[in-house]
């Protein structure tokens, strides 16, 4: 009973750490902020999820203890990780961080240009 718990939980935790490792390799290899945040936001959420599930299973099977805090942790990671990636990307775009040279198209550019002109107009009025 105890050994099977250790094997299953160990497999989950191993897969989780492997996913985290690969996502950090992605952070090094990918060319710009936006593609990097793809790797950071997606793979690390699944890695953390697998590690937390492994921990949960270990304590559930070996000691019969069901931890509701781990479940809450999983839910919070799921809710917050995509929002964080979105906010970082948006801040980077606002700060004029360029995309890589290989980028195909950029439909957001026109939107921001027109927005900026309007903003400067309203600022002029306020002054």
């Amino acid at each position, binding site marked *: 009973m105890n050994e099977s718990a250790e094997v299953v939980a160990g497999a989950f935790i191993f897969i989780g750490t492997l996913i985290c490792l690969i*996502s950090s390799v992605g952070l090094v290899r990918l060319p710009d902020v*936006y593609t990097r945040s793809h790797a950071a936001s997606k793979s690390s959420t699944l890695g953390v999820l697998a590690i937390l599930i492994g921990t949960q299973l270990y304590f559930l099977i070996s000691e019969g203890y069901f931890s509701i805090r781990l479940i809450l942790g999983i839910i919070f990671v799921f809710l917050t990780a995509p929002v964080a990636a979105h906010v970082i990307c948006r801040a980077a775009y606002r700060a004029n961080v360029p995309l890589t040279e*290989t980028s195909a198209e950029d*439909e957001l550019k026109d939107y921001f240009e027109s927005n900026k002109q309007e903003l400067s107009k309203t600022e002029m009025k306020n002054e």
Partner: protein
Amino acid sequence: MAFQILLNFLLAFLWMIFESSFSINTFLIGYLLGLLILLIMRRFFNSRFYLWRVIAIVKLLLIFIKELFLSNLAVLKLVLRPKLNIRPGIFALQTKLESGWEITLLANLITLTPGTLVVKLSDDNQTLYIHAIDIQEVEDAIEGIKNSFEKAILEVSR
């Protein structure tokens, strides 16, 4: 929806009082009977029978988990490929959704789908600007996924 759930709880408590036994089992039986009564009486409510909406929420949750796994596999494959020949780009997507939480949910789902990430929501809440990691091959497929997400969210909120 909240009103129907509250009514169902009240019916279950009523059943517990009728039986004069206050245990979880009696509550569950009363809840199921109340569900049946609400199903029969559903044409007197303004909104839909709430169980369908609960089923739609569960369906959305399953889609979410499936997409999370697929997107992770896609990104892992991309990272481990020996040569990086990707073409990132930003494209615009019109959305029909209106209220704030629906758009937030859609943006979160898009961020967790393979190869897409929401960069900006326009000020009139109608266009999402999405950064795609490999724009040439996925764009059509992504449109299809978006439509299914949007449909699932509309199914919940309607």
